[in-house]
């Protein structure tokens, strides 16, 4: 047991693990792209929380390095989400679907190209 952790850091540590797991479970369960994006963002939040809790859970001044990394991560997450949403709109235009289904999707793209 890590003695440096205070009880409140412990709570957030377990929250981080739970949020990551919930996100992963959701990602594996869904083929709906919007939902998958939500779950990937959940997983990201879980990782961010883990980084900060491990960096700042002990006594003393908060560690600014993980905070800066997570700040960078939050900005990158929103940019990547924006890009993924643009891909989704394009995908929807090509396949008329917002889901991922390997066989049907390949056919749909082929049809869109043939037209």
């Amino acid at each position, binding site marked *: 047991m890590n003695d440096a952790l*205070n009880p409140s850091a412990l709570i*957030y540590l377990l929250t981080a693990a739970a949020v990551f797991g919930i996100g992963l479970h959701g990602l*594996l*369960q*869904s083929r709906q792209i919007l939902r998958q994006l939500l779950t990937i963002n959940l997983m990201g939040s879980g990782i961010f*929380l883990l980084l900060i809790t491990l*960096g700042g859970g002990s006594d003393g001044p908060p560690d600014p390095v993980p905070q800066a990394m997570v700040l960078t991560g939050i900005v990158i997450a929103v940019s990547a989400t924006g890009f993924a949403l643009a891909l989704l*709109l*394009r995908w929807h*235009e090509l396949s008329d679907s917002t889901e991922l289904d390997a066989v049907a999707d390949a056919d749909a793209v082929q049809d869109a190209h043939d037209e």
Partner: protein
Amino acid sequence: MRAPDMRVPDMRVPDMIGLGIDAVLALAIVWLALQTVRSRDLFKAMLMFVVFGLLMSLAWARLHAPDLALAEAAIGAGITGALLLVTWRRLQADGHEPADSEHPPLPLWLRLPTAGGASMLVASIGWVALELPATPGTAGELAWQRIDDIGVSNPVTAVLLGFRAYDTLLEMAVVLAAWLGARAVAIELRPGALPGPAYAEVPLVGALLSLVVPISILVAVYLLQAGGNAPGGAFQGGAVLAAGGVLLCLTGRLEAAAQTSGLERVLLVLGLVVFSLAGLLVMASGGAMLALPGLWAIYLVETALLLSIAITLVLLFAAAPGLRRAS
């Protein structure tokens, strides 16, 4: 100078009220994450995710990370939520309301192992994290020791623009790449009004905008200025400025243009160019690359970063090559 209010209060005496708040917050965060995943209604799931972001920002505040709390509220909950909802509306406008399939995507015999595997992963992450020994002599301690060299007293800003400036520079490259990618795959958009509620006609909207948009600019500049010695900085400020731009798009004051204008191009690359140039010029005078030569250089770079972040987020929201004033 080290800001005294950034130090963690003595936690050896358990603070029962604080612990209670943490426990309730943690439960709410886990419940909202579950709802985001489990809710059958995708729209509801998106709203749950936005609320999740807001509670995460409270959690950051509880974890003594006020910079993250600001960023999460403005970016994680605010801009991400706006991006999700506007995409939803675009799909809806195409007559296609995204919904989960009628049939569960995975058969039951696969779903149970998936859930079991995810739970085991959670348990192992939690276990490993609990067993991790406290590591002395981290980069953070070094950053605290040398913070006076940078000239700003907010340690996060010092790390972002001083000790780990590479990360921030490359982050700007990633943000630009994300926009370029989104631009490359964007569907051909008819120039003109962006999809959004037709609130533009309501008389109060004009009055509201003339109040809220200047305030968003003011708050953005304040956050930038405060970032040196208090929570805040270019990213939070950029997100607040972007929120003002999003509002102008939503109310029809800005509409899609067919081309990216020259000004928009300059603003998109401004952060990357100014940061790189400042970093290289330092080398010319014998310093290390990206070792910004003083407070003025930090603020100059931060201003450029703020403008680039803001324009990128607004353009990502509009999913248009450029924006123009509505005629």
